[in-house]
């Protein structure tokens, strides 16, 4: 029976087609069902092909020891923020809290509540600026990085050189000129003065450019053949393959944007950002020692949350998967 079927070319073809269809369906279902499961299977098969259990344990111990060294200051500032005033000035300083208290935090918000401009205004400023910078940065940088890494247009190598060189230039000598430029464009004392300089930074662009250049050209050619323009290729083909890099980009830009200090760029009180106001509160001397630590901890939370979300969403990318060459 089987032999007769095999010998009949028409039937075999249709059978194969049927099989292929069924397989595709199955794969699709598998993909839909628990992507985490899939990722785990892939990992245990993929990454640990050449690893041993002993090696894993040794690595873990090494990293844990180094990790303590790296985490110590973070731990210390959190501990300090929970110390009551009597413990803060104990000498030598203790590495643990005897009677933890939320006093510092409540004091911080009490001081913040008595400000001339409502505290919520500063929170709004910071959140608004950070969100706008992050969104604009990711959009602008991804577009540009795609072109710089995958398009061979006239002037492309010159622009790439420009980006690398600009990363080496330090801001100490240029801040005054930046101010002059912004003043000429009438941007001083507006949100734009805080937002626009952080949108187009060469570090983010270079990061994305470098990562995108590892993508296989064949995928992009395939997209072109299918009729996708540069913009569509960038956002539907390249970007979905760049999750780790984009997560990293978001961490960088969020952190930078969250810590933007108005400085000379805005002097109107209701445009100032949270870090500016926190450092103003903390600057009032030794009596507010606890508040300094509390404000540092509060300011640390948003970048930390973004970091954890971004990092844990990074699955192994499937860059170049489906390529056969």
């Amino acid at each position: 029976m089987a032999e007769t079927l095999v010998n009949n070319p028409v039937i075999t073809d249709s059978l194969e087609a049927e099989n292929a269809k069924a397989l595709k369906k199955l794969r699709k279902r598998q993909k839909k069902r628990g992507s985490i499961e899939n990722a785990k299977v892939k990992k245990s098969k993929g990454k640990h092909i050449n690893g041993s259990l002993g090696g894993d344990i040794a690595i873990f111990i090494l990293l844990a020891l180094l990790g303590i060294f790296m985490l110590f200051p973070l731990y210390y500032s959190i501990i300090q923020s929970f110390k009551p005033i009597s413990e803060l000035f104990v000498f030598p300083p203790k590495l643990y809290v005897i009677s933890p208290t939320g006093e510092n935090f409540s004091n911080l918000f009490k001081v913040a509540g008595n400000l001339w401009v409502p505290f919520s205004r500063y929170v709004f400023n910071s959140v608004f600026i950070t969100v706008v910078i992050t969104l604009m940065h990711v959009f602008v940088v991804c577009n540009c990085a795609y072109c710089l890494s995958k398009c061979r247009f006239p002037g492309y190598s010159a622009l790439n050189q420009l980006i690398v060189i600009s990363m080496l230039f330090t801001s100490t000598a240029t801040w005054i000129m930046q101010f002059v430029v912004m003043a000429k464009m009438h941007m001083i004392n507006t949100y734009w003065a805080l937002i626009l300089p952080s949108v187009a930074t060469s570090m983010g662009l270079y990061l994305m450019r470098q990562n995108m250049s590892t993508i296989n050209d064949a995928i992009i050619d395939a997209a072109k053949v299918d009729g996708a323009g540069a913009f569509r290729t960038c956002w539907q083909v390249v970007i979905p393959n760049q999750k780790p890099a984009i997560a990293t980009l978001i961490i960088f830009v969020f952190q930078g944007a969250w810590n933007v200090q108005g400085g000379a760029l805005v002097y109107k009180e209701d445009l100032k950002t949270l870090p500016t106001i926190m450092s103003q509160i903390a600057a009032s001397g030794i009596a507010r020692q606890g508040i300094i630590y509390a404000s540092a901890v509060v300011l640390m939370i948003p970048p930390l949350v973004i970091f954890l979300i971004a990092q844990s969403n990074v699955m192994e990318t499937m860059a170049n998967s489906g390529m056969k060459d």
Partner: protein
Amino acid sequence: MAKEKTVERKKPIEPGSWRHTLHEMKMNQACYWMMLPFFALFTFFTVIPVVMSLPLGLTSFNLVQFPRYIGLQNFYSLFVNDDVFLIAVKNTLIFAIFTGPFSYVLSFILAWLINEMNPFLKVFFTFVFYAPSMTPSAFVIWQLVFSGDSYGYLNSVLLDFGIINSAKQWLTDVTYMMTVVIIVQLWTSMGAGFLALRAGFQGIDTALYEAGAIEGIQNRFQELFTITIPAMGPSLLFAAVLAISGAFTVGSVGAALCGMPSTAYAVHTVMNHAQDYGSIRYEMGYASAICFVLFAVMLICNQLIRKVLSRFTDN
């Protein structure tokens, strides 16, 4: 002219000619539109300020009066008259040699080791090693650790164990300052480069490892050198550029720990020097000249590293 006729007959456009360039530009029109937003902002906030500040190095400018052209005098006094600058150059080179390559290699090794772990531990350890860069205010703690009295953590521990018999002035004694600042510098330098390398590792196609295993790769090290490093050339280059610019612009850590100026300028760097003239003495012309020298050195260094790395990696 004769050539033009043949062009008309065959209709190819010669590469290198302006017509070819124009044609290419038309073909890639979409690219230019996509790059426009970035480069417009980049020109206004980076290119113009940088280009405008370079000529400043040739002037005497105090922010109040109009810059006065003085030729190469700034550079002349920088190298001939300014003793502190020469100390700063020496210190910067020491910092660059110790912190640059070391933090680069360390972040690569750590990123690699972390990559071998399971997903939860990956996130956890990435967080642990990136944490110092998220808490810029945290190096106040190092002041407590290295505090000069017998209550400073390091002093009290060493005294308890009888390794030293009197408290050391870690932050003001010239013999220790350099070491202390290098350690703290290393601690803070595991930031962007490390995270970029992590992303680079994450982006490697796992099929490559499978193929490698089939081809007979035996252990992790072989895998590292034959598959991983060649596959992540671009990320390595990025981290290298970051490491260079980080290593040559050290200064804030030393200033925060040892004060500015530090004792006998022991940890005074070129960056500190530029800040000193730029934001304390308001001699912007001189500060620009200092930054220009620093920039030139970094550029040379960058070209060298590029050449070295291109031997090991794919692109």
